[in-house]
């Protein structure tokens, strides 16, 4: 085999697949008490499942991500999957060694059942008739997919941000099915500040007259509201330092202030661009549901009767927790709180706070430190499986 340049190696062409369940009386019972059927999950895999099915890694995407974690859909596809830098042959999550699974969350709009899917009762999109889903519901769906793929135990569950919440829920909900968990730049519960920003984003959507109570699939989408929601989100993903570095007060395509309400500053132009680009790929109702799921997430209440230590007493896997210095959406103290609770349970946990100026976004940006942490940690987990040692 020739040496590969890690920065350019790719898993190559990948295919989005579907898995539908709930049609044969195995419907999904949601946290809100309602049942849902049928449920379709869009998912992608890369790498090869080994003979004893012990090398599977589930990657959980963040708020507005999708199943397209790595590779290209076609030879002329200009853009690879969202974590192509990390997932691929010879990369930290090495597709030469591991079988990677990534599915779009329930409530999403990238192929999995969500508010824009057709309600079988009305043959029209659910809209706000779609039940409110939770992080736990997303994880329950992923478990059905893992069952369907014939995988008993995942080598690891990995994800950042809202994906990290799914990782944490997996590790305490199905402790016997996870050997290792890697929650990145995440939290066991949203702070009031995080909920506040999500609420502003939701209000922006709902204040758009085209939202129309969520019933807009024939009349035209609330594009402006969704764009503003994305702009709010984007601010929380950056940091004061990264904005200063990226934009400072530089003007956009002009030498002087315009004295009107055009985008004078580069930062305004950037946010408008991000907002408009987002509208092309995302559904406004999905945004409402997914932000709500993130706000509702509360690991200690759900699994520990209000105690994070009690919640992690259910866990048995090995953890790698990573936070970033400039992440003010899920600050390091929130990662330290989960690490503390894991340690109090005598769990095997590694933790690193990575110095990075880029805010919450840092977990998705190129980062040599993160790469070496992932690689080293996964190497040991898979060596232990190969050596027959239990994760505990």
């Amino acid at each position, binding site marked *: 085999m020739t040496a590969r340049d890690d920065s350019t190696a790719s898993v190559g062409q990948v295919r989005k697949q579907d898995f539908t369940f709930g049609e044969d009386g195995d419907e999904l019972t949601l946290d809100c008490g309602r049942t849902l059927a049928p449920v379709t999950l869009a998912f992608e895999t890369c790498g090869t499942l080994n003979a004893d099915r012990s090398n599977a890694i589930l990657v959980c995407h963040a708020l507005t991500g999708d199943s397209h974690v790595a590779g290209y859909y076609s030879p002329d596809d200009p853009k690879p999957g969202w974590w192509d830098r990390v997932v691929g042959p010879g990369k930290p999550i090495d597709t030469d060694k591991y079988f990677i699974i990534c599915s779009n969350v329930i409530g999403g709009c990238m192929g999995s059942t969500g508010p824009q899917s057709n309600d079988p009762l009305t043959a029209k999109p659910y809209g706000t008739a779609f039940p409110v889903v939770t992080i736990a519901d997303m994880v329950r769906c992923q478990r059905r997919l893992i069952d369907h793929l014939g995988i008993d135990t995942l080598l690891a569950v990995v994800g950042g941000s809202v994906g990290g919440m799914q990782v944490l829920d997996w590790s305490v909900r199905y402790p016997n099915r996870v050997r290792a968990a890697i929650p990145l730049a995440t939290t066991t519960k949203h702070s009031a500040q995080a909920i506040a920003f999500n609420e502003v984003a939701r209000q922006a959507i709902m204040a758009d007259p085209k939202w129309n109570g969520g019933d807009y699939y024939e009349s035209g989408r609330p594009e402006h509201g969704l764009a503003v929601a994305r702009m709010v989100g984007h601010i929380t993903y950056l940091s004061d330092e990264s904005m200063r570095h990226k934009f400072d007060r530089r003007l956009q395509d002009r030498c002087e202030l315009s004295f009107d309400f055009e985008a004078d500053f580069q930062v305004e132009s950037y946010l408008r661009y991000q907002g408009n680009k987002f509208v092309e790929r995302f559904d406004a109702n999905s945004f409402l549901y997914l932000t709500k799921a993130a706000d509702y997430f509360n690991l200690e209440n759900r699994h520990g009767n209000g105690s994070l230590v009690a919640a992690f007493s259910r866990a048995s896997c090995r953890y790698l927790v990573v936070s970033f210095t400039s992440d003010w959406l899920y600050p390091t103290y929130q990662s330290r709180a989960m690490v503390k609770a894991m340690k109090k349970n005598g769990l095997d946990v590694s933790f690193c706070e990575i110095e990075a100026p880029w805010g919450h976004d840092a977990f998705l940006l190129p980062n040599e430190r993160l790469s070496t942490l992932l690689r080293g940690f996964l*190497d040991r987990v898979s060596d232990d499986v190969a050596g027959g040692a239990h994760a505990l």
Partner: protein
Amino acid sequence: MRFDLQVIASWIEPGSKVLDLGCRTGSLLTHLTEQKGIKGTGIEIDEDAVGEAIAKGLTVIHGDVYEEIEDYPDGLFDYVILSQTLQQVADPAMLIREMLRVGRRCVVSFPNFTHYKNRLQVFFLGQAPVSRELPYQWHNSPNIHVVPIKDFRRFCRELNVPIVREVAISTDHLDTKGRIITFLPNLLATFGIFLLGQPEEE
């Protein structure tokens, strides 16, 4: 590996659970894992060192020794190691009590301040000693305590902590090589290494 770490490693029983405080890049833990099949955990404040240690496959927490040791349940470890850090910690008595709470035994090593070369510098040159073991000037030293081997023994008595084993060593220009000092250790040893047991009832 540093000679003092080789001595420490020789004291650890195979298969033990070990906590290394200030583990740096984890060379001792790696050695113990490979040679003695121990299950190790490290605590380290420096991000680069933590990154390197986790990349080797070790379990390491990025943080302050004082804060991080608090979270572990009583008796989780067989050995808790503090190598060449004692002279830098704010409250050695409190830390050693914590080490013996979370671990059955603890190992402490430190540069012997009363080594004859240090004494000569103070006596003849009239200046704060600077040596290979204590390489700092008075104004940039992270070392806030001076610890002679003799004083450390007395300190353990005051804490009612039994000294299970004690070795004084002298390392030469290569810090991977050294020898055990049995004659006048407080004068001739560059490092003291102590294995401490559970505090005795008063």
